[in-house]
Each structure stands twice: as structure tokens, then as C-alpha cells.
């Protein structure tokens, strides 16, 4: 998986992998785990079996099909790619223009949804994960006590809330 295995071992292992479907399944699973951990956008999901099953149940169309010229297919692919890029760009802009509100979502179902959404936003957001809500800036600020380098920008968001929203629990 990472080029660390010697050539002799690799040949032997690949031969065994080809013979044993269980091992192939494991191999695919580990690739999928690896991709997920690396937040890869190209998950190694083996969809060949499910597609084969689908195809088996599809009715066979016996009408002759004229193959489309390659040029047209390339054009279609280019258009599709452009649309994807534009949608991704638009979504990025949306996220930039509507930064995450400091209020939190309480609904438990929303938490579950959020977990599912996170990997999707990775591909369109300039950040790998959702931007920290404003209250986390307070943690970052006090963390900075031990952490050299960072300037004072973390303070801004939290302490720039309207003063009426600020409550000092230590005030007597």
C-alpha cells in the first residue's frame, strides 16, 4: 500500500490476493480505511460487484447504438468538470459569505447529519474542517499562554460580541 514491501514479497502477496476473495475484500477495506483517515476525496470503494448485480437485472436493449465520437464525449466530460468546479466554487463562496454562526445546533439529529456532512465539506472549503465556533477562540487564547508565536487575533471574535451578551461569572 505504501511501497514499503519488498518486490519478492509483493509478488507473492498479490498472487495470493488474486486467489482468495476474502483477502481481496480485506485489502479493499483497508484501502477504504486508509483513504478515510487521510480524508481522501477518492475513496477506494469497490462498486464493481454492485454494478454487476444492477446490470444483471437491467433489461437488455437490443436496438443498435451508434457510438458517439470521442470528441463529443471529451466535450461532455469537460462540461461536467466545469459544472463541478463552478458548484464547488459557489459553495465555497457561500461558506465564506455566511461564516458559521456562533449559535450551536441542539438537535441531536443535526449532530448525526453533521458527522455525515463533514467529509463532503472538505472538498469545497478552504479549511479541512468546519471553522471553530466563536466560543472556542477563548480556549485558543488561553492555550496561547504555553504556545509561542500566535498573535492576538483569536481574541477578536469572542470578545467582540455585543457587550450585553457578555456575562462575567466571576464578577461579584
Amino acid at each position, binding site marked *: 500500500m*505504501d511501497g514499503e514491501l519488498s518486490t519478492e514479497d509483493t509478488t507473492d*502477496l498479490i498472487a495470493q490476493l488474486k486467489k482468495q476473495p476474502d483477502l481481496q475484500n480485506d485489502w479493499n477495506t483497508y484501502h477504504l480505511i486508509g483513504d478515510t483517515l487521510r480524508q481522501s476525496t477518492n475513496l477506494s470503494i469497490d462498486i464493481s460487484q454492485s454494478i454487476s448485480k444492477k446490470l444483471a437485472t437491467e433489461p437488455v436493449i437490443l436496438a443498435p447504438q451508434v457510438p458517439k465520437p470521442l470528441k463529443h464525449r471529451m466535450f461532455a466530460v469537460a462540461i461536467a468538470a466545469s459544472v463541478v468546479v463552478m458548484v464547488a466554487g459557489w459553495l465555497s463562496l457561500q461558506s465564506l459569505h455566511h461564516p458559521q454562526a456562533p449559535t450551536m445546533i*441542539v438537535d441531536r439529529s443535526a449532530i448525526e447529519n453533521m458527522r455525515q456532512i463533514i467529509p463532503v465539506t472538505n472538498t469545497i472549503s478552504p479549511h*479541512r474542517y468546519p471553522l471553530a465556533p466563536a466560543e472556542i477562540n477563548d*480556549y485558543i487564547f488561553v*492555550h496561547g499562554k*504555553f*504556545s509561542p508565536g500566535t498573535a492576538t487575533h483569536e481574541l477578536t471574535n469572542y470578545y467582540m460580541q*455585543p*457587550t450585553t451578551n457578555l456575562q462575567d461569572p466571576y464578577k461579584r
Partner: protein
Amino acid sequence: MIRAMQIMWLLLLPVVALSSFAQNFPDSSKEALNWLEKIAAAPRLYNYTGTFVYYADAHMETSHIVHIVDTHGEREKIEVLDGLTRVVIRNNDEMICYLPESKTIITEKRWLRKFFPDILPLPLVELNNNYYVKEGKQERVTGYNCQIIVLNPRDKLRYGHKLWVDIDTGMVLKVAVIDAEQVIEQFAFSQLTIGDEVGAELLEHDHAPIDKATEWHTHNLITSVLANETLGWQVKNPPSGFKKIIEMKRNLAGKSVLIDHIALSDGLATVSIFIEPMLNNTTPQLPGFYSSRGAINIYVRTLADKKITTVGEVPPETVKKIGDSVFKK
């Protein structure tokens, strides 16, 4: 089946090994480590005034710094010049931060924080274990001849650093934090004067607006440093190279209870763990990863009725590993 398991282990081993893969860098040279000692000493030896720029995620922020070392110890004032006004005044371990727009003052009596360019506050012993420190070429930064010092991480658990160090004084004039060849955060002086006498009046803050107004809020940050292993939490098998440097109880503005705070360091990067009860009257933080600006990553998880927030200038995987290494004693 046993054979299959063996093969799977064989296949998995390189993956496991990669996660804790130590790149085969040699030991750091004595000359390179000497530079780090010079860097650590410089802020306690020289006065300086200057303007530095912070850049990350296409965001730039300029700050002005005045730093004085004299018989009173170390004092400095940093004023952020872009956007909303923020002024931090440090008098040895005391910190006062003024935020005029929200009429807020934040104070802390035991402020150990070091601001750029004072970036190496911890003993250097651990550094060589976790980073390969080497001398690069020489370059000019804001008129000063600098020696580049590169800190290559020995594994993927931490970010790399590149420091531009004034050859004469050891002052760090530029820092780049690097994740796999990509600069994710940068500090650099755009103007700097080192060594001249600096008038103490430059440290003063204009208190007139505060004196006139009554509606200013003051938040006193209070920490209580505890003896090791006093808190009811254990950091079990943290990622390689990270060691606990302090544990304490602290308050935070907006929190009605004291929070447990544990900090770990690998000699350069630090990670903080905050543990607090989840109160019924507050909105719960969603568990998972969060990004902040630059090199900071955040990981939130829950453990029984506690929320654990882990924050640090390390890759997300490392923040998670550290957050997940917290157990109740």
C-alpha cells in the same frame, strides 16, 4: 484463516509503521542547536521596536511591538494595527489586554505566554528528539542578515518550522510553519530596530477612554497550577514525543465552573486539553474536528458527562490522538 490474518498483519504493518514513522534524519548538529539557544536567549537580552506581519489562510494582520528589558525585567506592548483594536501589555508575568470596541479588559497575573518573536520558551532537550534541526542558507530580512534554521519534524505528528534568525543578536525575524512543504502560517518583521534605548512611555496605554466610561467589562483570568497528577485525569500513551508540562484549574469567561486544563509539549509545539462538565443549561458543542486560522487545530469529544476540547498547533490527527488519550483515573 490464521494464514490470512498473518498476511493482513503483514499488509497492515507498514500502515501502522507509517503513522509513527520516524524519518531517518541524523542527529541535529551542535551548531544548529546552539542557534536555538541563542534564539531562546535573545528576547531577554535586547530591547526592540518594530512592526510584524502575521499571514495565514489568505489573511494578513499587522502588529506593532515594543519590547524593553531592564531592571524591571521584561515588558512589552503589542498593538494589532489592522481591523479591530487589540492591545496587549505584558509586564513580566502579568498580562492586560484592552479591547476598546467591546469595552473589555482581560487580565491575568500569571501569564507565561510568549509572543512572536519569542518563540522558544521551553527547554531545548526534547527538540532534537522530535525535530531535525539544521542550518540553511543566509538571507536578508528587513535589512538584517539572517541565518535560516530549519526544524524538520521527525514524524508526521507535528509541523515543520523555518526560522530566519538575525546573525548578530539571535532574534527571530521571520517564522514559517510548514505542513508537507506548504507554508500554513507565517510571521515576519517588516520593520525592526534592535538594541536601541526604548523609552518606557512607549509601553503605556491611553487610559483616558477607560477612565471616562463606566461600562467597561473586566475579565480576570485566574489559574491555579496544580502538582502533577492532581487532576482526576490521566493522559495515557500520548503521541510520541509529547509530554505533559503542566496541569491546572482555570476559569474562562462565560463559564460558571472551573475547567481542568492540561498542556503537553514536544519541545516546540504545544497542545492544550480542556475538560469541563457539560452543563444542562448550555448548548452542547458538536463533537468532531474544527479548524481555526493557520496551524491551530481543534478536536472536541465527550467522555461520560464531560466535554474534552483539545487545541494545538499540530496536525488534526495529533490533536485527536491527544484528545483521545484522556482517561478518568
